[in-house]
């Protein structure tokens, strides 16, 4: 589930987990209300805004969480999959931010769930932790587990997901495979400086979306930069500076999620 900050990713996850009640409609997990203990026994959760005691060790808290599930993984296995074996006997209070994130992952998987909900799982992880995490996610997916995770990095979603749902302000704006989604997203960024102040009208009817417009400078996103430039020159636009680069995926994604009514 992909979307910019404030898109409603955490709210959606909370609804799916029964942590929040929908104002309309209903959420069902395995055909049960998500708050049903039988449903919760089959899912693992990693939340952004949550904490845990600091005085237990990693192994101790994993063992407590294992007791909540009918057929948990061995503690050693859950800790190893989270890449925390070396820290198994360390108190939680001594863990770094990234290690803490791995601990939450260990707690999410220790019940051997069929479905995992991970809200922004890689936030705060260093490169090493992220690599271990990605490997574990792939192992779990290969074992047939369903993994729902949120991210605001298109790259991360592309790398890990088979299906990407893009949401913005609580609305689904795209639901596709990474490949399909990529085709919908413009691939090139055109940055140009005109000899006079530019207006939105200068770019009307072009096969491009305006990313930024600031007096004489503009940046556009397009999959057809050559055609766009040809049309601009045909209209007689005098350019002082021009640059065409591969679109930054974040920016491309931003253009996709931006509704017309908020465009600058």
């Amino acid at each position, binding site marked *: 589930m992909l979307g910019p900050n404030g898109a409603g990713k955490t709210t959606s996850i*909370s609804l799916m987990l029964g942590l929040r009640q929908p104002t309309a409609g209903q959420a069902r997990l395995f055909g049960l209300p998500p708050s049903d*203990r039988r449903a919760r*026994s089959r899912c693992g959760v990693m939340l952004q805004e949550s904490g*845990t005691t600091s005085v237990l060790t990693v192994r101790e808290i994993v063992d*407590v969480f294992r007791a*909540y599930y009918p057929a948990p993984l061995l503690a050693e296995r859950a800790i190893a999959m989270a890449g925390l074996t070396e820290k198994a006997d360390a108190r939680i209070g001594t863990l770094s931010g990234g290690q803490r994130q791995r601990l939450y992952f260990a707690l999410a998987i220790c019940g051997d769930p069929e479905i995992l909900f991970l809200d922004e799982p890689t936030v705060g992880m260093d490169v090493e932790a992220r690599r271990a995490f990605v490997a574990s996610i792939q192992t779990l997916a290969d074992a047939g587990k369903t993994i729902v995770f949120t991210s605001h990095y298109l790259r991360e979603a592309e790398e890990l997901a088979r299906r990407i749902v893009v949401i913005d302000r609580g609305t689904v704006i795209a639901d596709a495979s990474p490949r399909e989604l990529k085709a919908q997203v413009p691939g090139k960024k055109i940055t140009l400086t005109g000899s006079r102040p530019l207006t939105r009208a200068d770019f009307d009817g072009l096969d491009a979306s305006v990313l930024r417009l600031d007096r004489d400078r503009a940046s556009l996103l397009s999959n057809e930069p050559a055609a766009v430039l040809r049309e601009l020159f045909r209209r007689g636009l005098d350019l002082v500076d021009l640059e065409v680069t591969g679109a930054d995926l974040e920016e491309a994604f931003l253009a996709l999620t931006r509704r017309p009514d908020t465009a600058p």
Partner: protein
Amino acid sequence: MSAPGATAPLGRMLLAQTASELRIRWRIPAFSVTIVALPVLFFTFFGLPYVRQTLPNGTSLGAYLLASFAAYSVGSVMVFGFGIGVSTERGLKVDVLMRATPLPPAIAILAKVFNALAYALLSLVVLIAYGVLVGGVRESPLVWLDMIARLLAGSLPFIALGFSIGYRCGPNVAPAAANLVYLPLSFASGLFVPLPQLPAFVRRIAPYLPTYHYGQLAWSSVGAAAEPLLTSLAWLLGYTVLFLAIALRAYRSEESRKFG
């Protein structure tokens, strides 16, 4: 992976949860040491000098004062343990993650209650042993067992009071709130200094306080209760209902704010 519909046995959850609560509390000396040391310290200052005296009805003043501090100690474990414990957990957002697990909230609360009862028992055993061995207070062991059983069984209103503080106050405010509520209650009920030595207006207020009636449970064990047991129990039950209502209200308003 488990069969669809399978859940972990509640007994196993309760055991693991209680053990971890005990461990967590044990590793926070600010709690475990305070809860055991303070009543002993108070008894040393307010009780030891008078252990050889007897009350007009023949009860040993030492036993009477030990009973007072026993009541104080159990109440404080409950009010401080739950008050500060619950607010700290809320501050750390432990509750958010726990809510998403299959652990039923009732089991989590029951584990906290068992944990608090265990620490209350520890505190009582240390205090009574100190009173007997160091203070030379002489009563039959059955009297102490009876007192321990009464105090633990009657601690419900203070558990509820602790919960209402824990759900109403943030982690920075809860310790002060617990002190501000519990210490005056204890003083004004004659748990530190016997009631006859307190100002007249305090003596008039005392019979309306939960700590006063809780004290009666302990004093009745040593034959010095000022009212029938049923009266004490009725008052304690009333306060339990009142505090539970406050706790439940605070809990609900938090629920709707956080998870609504």
